[in-house]
């Protein structure tokens, strides 16, 4: 995603566009919509890539019913009747845009729009029976009707873009003999070359479907959305199926299963985890201690910190600082070989000393890139500053344009998103009036000026 556009979603009144980058940091005061922003990113992924109706109540983002999600300013009597969200990916010249309306109290994507190059398709859901599909090339367009194919019982599945558009193109006359008929009658604004372009666009849309684009992925894990507080460590774990959850409760079982079943991959992951552990000062070694020889045997996660009084001893995860167990789920997800292409992280710095927060910033720089996008909600200056410095000093492959800082600023009755950039010298560009004013005031008071 290169940019995300919202309209009348939660606290974001009117239309706003935010610049996205391989590493995007969300900053701002509490209750300014940062988590809502993460929620809409997941929803966009679900509706555009997985082609399902987004669940706005699924953890870690429970935004409530439609009436709580659409922009609503009771003091002014303003209540929108729909909200919109979309994104653009300039590499593929693709943009998606969705309009959500209230269907039985939940947001339903009644309108789906996708454009690829000069071609565009606008699918308006009319009923469980049919959708209106407008096919366009630049300003020429044609309206057709196709079967909706929506499973009304639980509203969870959308009929995929590719299929809908395929039907629409067929109806427009591309397939069978009706091309010439449609063209002869003057109903169709497209010639055969246009249909070739539209067909190419339809194939591009298929590429966006996740199974083609990311065949290695476990679909349950895409995207990875972490909760702001991760699960408590346990002294001893009983093995369980490692099913992804936002708090990372599955991580110990995942590590145990990997160490037992795939020692080669475990060695690589262990090496990466320990590299981060050393850089952050959290630990130098991580191990799975099993109390038996079967998959059903209980186990412990143990870590070792070399140096100081702890030298030589492995300690149980529960016996060391909370920072390790709170960070482990995020770091493991970031470093696993089948990591998903989109990470949505909430305050990954929780419980971490500033030096470990800074190391986390470097880690984000090293794992984000064209194939993996990280969106990180944070209150940590240490993460942001480390990112800024690593980019400036060339310690990462990320270029200044690969980092976006989104500042969420509260207004009287809404929130504005400001897109802040970095330059090659580490300078912060496009910061709005009032950005970091609190810090300036605190510093002035601290110095005594």
């Amino acid at each position, binding site marked *: 995603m290169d940019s995300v556009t919202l309209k009348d979603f939660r606290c974001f009144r009117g239309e706003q566009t935010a610049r996205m980058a391989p590493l995007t940091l969300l900053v701002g005061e509490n209750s300014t919509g940062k988590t809502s922003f993460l929620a809409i990113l997941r929803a966009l992924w679900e509706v555009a890539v997985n082609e399902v109706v987004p669940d706005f109540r699924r953890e870690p983002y429970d935004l409530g019913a439609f009436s709580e999600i659409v922009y609503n300013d009771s003091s002014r009597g303003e209540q929108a009747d729909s909200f919109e969200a979309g994104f653009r990916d300039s590499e593929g010249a693709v943009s998606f845009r969705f309009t959500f309306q209230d269907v039985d109290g939940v947001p339903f994507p009644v309108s789906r729009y996708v454009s690829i190059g000069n071609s565009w398709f606008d699918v308006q859901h009319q009923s469980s029976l049919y959708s209106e599909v407008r096919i366009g090339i630049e300003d020429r367009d044609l309206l057709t009707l196709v079967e909706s194919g929506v499973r009304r019982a639980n509203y969870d599945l959308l009929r995929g873009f590719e299929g809908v558009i395929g039907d629409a193109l067929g109806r427009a006359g591309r397939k069978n003999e009706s091309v010439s008929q449609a063209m002869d009658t003057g109903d169709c604004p497209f010639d055969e070359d246009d249909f070739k372009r539209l067909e190419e666009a339809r194939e591009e849309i298929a590429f966006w479907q996740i199974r083609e684009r990311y065949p290695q992925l476990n679909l349950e894990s895409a995207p990875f959305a972490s909760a702001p507080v991760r699960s408590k460590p346990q002294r001893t774990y009983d093995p369980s199926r490692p099913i992804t959850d936002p708090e990372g409760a599955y991580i110990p079982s995942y590590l145990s299963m990997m160490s037992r079943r795939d020692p080669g991959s475990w060695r690589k992951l262990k090496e990466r985890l320990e590299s981060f552990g050393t850089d952050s000062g959290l630990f130098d070694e991580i191990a799975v201690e099993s109390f038996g020889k079967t998959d059903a045997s209980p186990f412990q996660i143990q870590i070792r910190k070399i140096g100081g009084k702890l030298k030589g001893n492995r300690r149980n995860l529960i016996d060391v600082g909370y920072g390790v167990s709170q960070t482990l789920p995020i770091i493991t997800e970031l470093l696993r070989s089948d990591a998903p292409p989109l990470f949505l992280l909430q305050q990954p710095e929780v419980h971490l000393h500033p030096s470990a927060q800074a190391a986390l910033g470097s880690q984000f720089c090293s794992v984000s890139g064209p194939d993996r996008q990280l969106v990180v909600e944070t209150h940590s200056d240490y993460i942001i500053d480390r990112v*800024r410095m690593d980019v400036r000093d060339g310690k990462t492959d990320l270029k200044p344009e690969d980092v976006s800082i989104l500042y969420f600023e509260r207004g009287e009755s809404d929130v504005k998103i400001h897109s802040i950039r970095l330059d090659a*010298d580490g*300078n*912060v560009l496009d*910061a709005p*009036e009032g950005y*970091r004013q609190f810090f*300036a005031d605190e*510093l002035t008071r601290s110095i*005594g000026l």
Partner: protein
Amino acid sequence: MCAIVDTNVYHEVFSPGSQSDAGKYFYDWLMRKNEGTIVSGGEHLRELNQIADFKRVFAERLQAGRARRIPDEDVDSETETIRSQGICNSNDEHVIALARLSGARLLFTNDGALQNDFRDRSVVEGTRGRVYTTVQFKDVRKTHRYLLRRSDLCDG
């Protein structure tokens, strides 16, 4: 608008107990919403970085996008170029280099020779440099207010 603070007046701006009224006015301009930006780099930054309070302010203003750091190697190289040309009357070629590279055309200094160099368009091209000074008056005068209200003292 962007400005350079000469090391000979840093205490008037950044040091508790040594602030002049005009220095505090300048400091407030730097710290208030949507007002000033300062630039530094090279020898200028190495000198000022020895002052703890300046370091803290500069680091914070960098994070806020209200300070710009010009790469040290660029400032040092430009300083050498200016020095070899022998065009400055002052011995503050590094400040002139910073002005040339950053586009800053406002300088807070009490050094007369540097003031002349900074205002000389054959030394610093483009918009003529303006000087914020407390040589005559340490209290806030109309000139101080006028200079900090200007929006045209940043080239490029």
